[in-house]
């Protein structure tokens, strides 16, 4: 999908992205990310024994929010992500759904430049928002 500035409206939702990483996926992410914190793969790690599980990496959630944004934006030379951010407010566990959502929060011009701000977040299957964030896209 490659969205065009002219077709974007305030309040538009962007297509959801649903992930359901298992433990093996978290191991693949650790290998790709270089973060081998046992919190994310070792059930015997003291914090995991206390929590009853390993946790999905915060960066995994960040990365899949980025994937959702790029799936909507498409690879176009006239539109670039200038800024993306998220906070982590809750825990996700392997095997559970992570639902990435977003909507157009602002559409504006600054001089000759055109921008869209997205409100983006991850949700659990029961609606808990664990990683709220935003992204700014600049259109040429």
């Amino acid at each position, binding site marked *: 999908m490659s969205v065009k500035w002219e077709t974007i409206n305030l309040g538009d939702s962007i297509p959801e992205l649903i992930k359901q990483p298992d433990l093996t*996926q978290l191991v693949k992410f650790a*290998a790709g990310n270089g973060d081998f914190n046992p919190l994310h793969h070792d059930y015997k790690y003291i914090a995991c024994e206390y929590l009853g599980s390993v946790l999905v990496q915060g960066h995994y959630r960040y*990365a899949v929010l980025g994937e959702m944004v790029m799936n909507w934006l498409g690879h176009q030379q006239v539109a*670039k992500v200038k800024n993306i951010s998220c906070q982590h407010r809750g825990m996700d566990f392997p095997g559970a759904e992570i639902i990435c959502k977003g909507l157009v929060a602002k559409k504006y011009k600054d001089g000759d430049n055109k921008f869209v701000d997205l409100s983006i977040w991850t949700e659990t299957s029961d609606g808990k928002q664990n990683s709220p964030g935003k992204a700014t896209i600049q259109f040429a």
Partner: protein
Amino acid sequence: MADHFEITDEMKAKIGKESPPWFFEVTTTGVRAFARGAGITDRVYYDEEAAKQAGYRSLPAPLTYHGTPVFIPGESDETFSMPLNADVTVEHGLPNTIDGGKETEYFEQICAGDTLTCISQLKALDIKVTGSGNHMLVTTIQFAFTNQHGKVAVIERLKVINH
């Protein structure tokens, strides 16, 4: 959880402290591994021909990926893979660590073939008090990545919460 935590003058004196430069390599293998790890299926991150047809020099780095830090045994952290001397955090004695989130600002496209030089910097130390009165230390670290052409490619700010 700590019911009281104080940021000492010694800690405050380290705000602004920068690391020596450390290096990230953006390779086709690394881009594919990160994309695979996140379960990204877009072919542009795996297939160089697809990447070029999409207008990229080579495989583009997925959002939030800025290459892989150069790892050298004995000189790099075994868990987090960064050089030991790139750590700009303060000694605080709090046992637990939470990823508080990141903000990433992009200035240049990052693709396989790029080499990024990173300077990490301690930007801020703050105390956050929870509703139940527990004190948490919030450390803000900035990572500034410059590419092989001397241009700032990415600036990222990470919040680490210790309690």
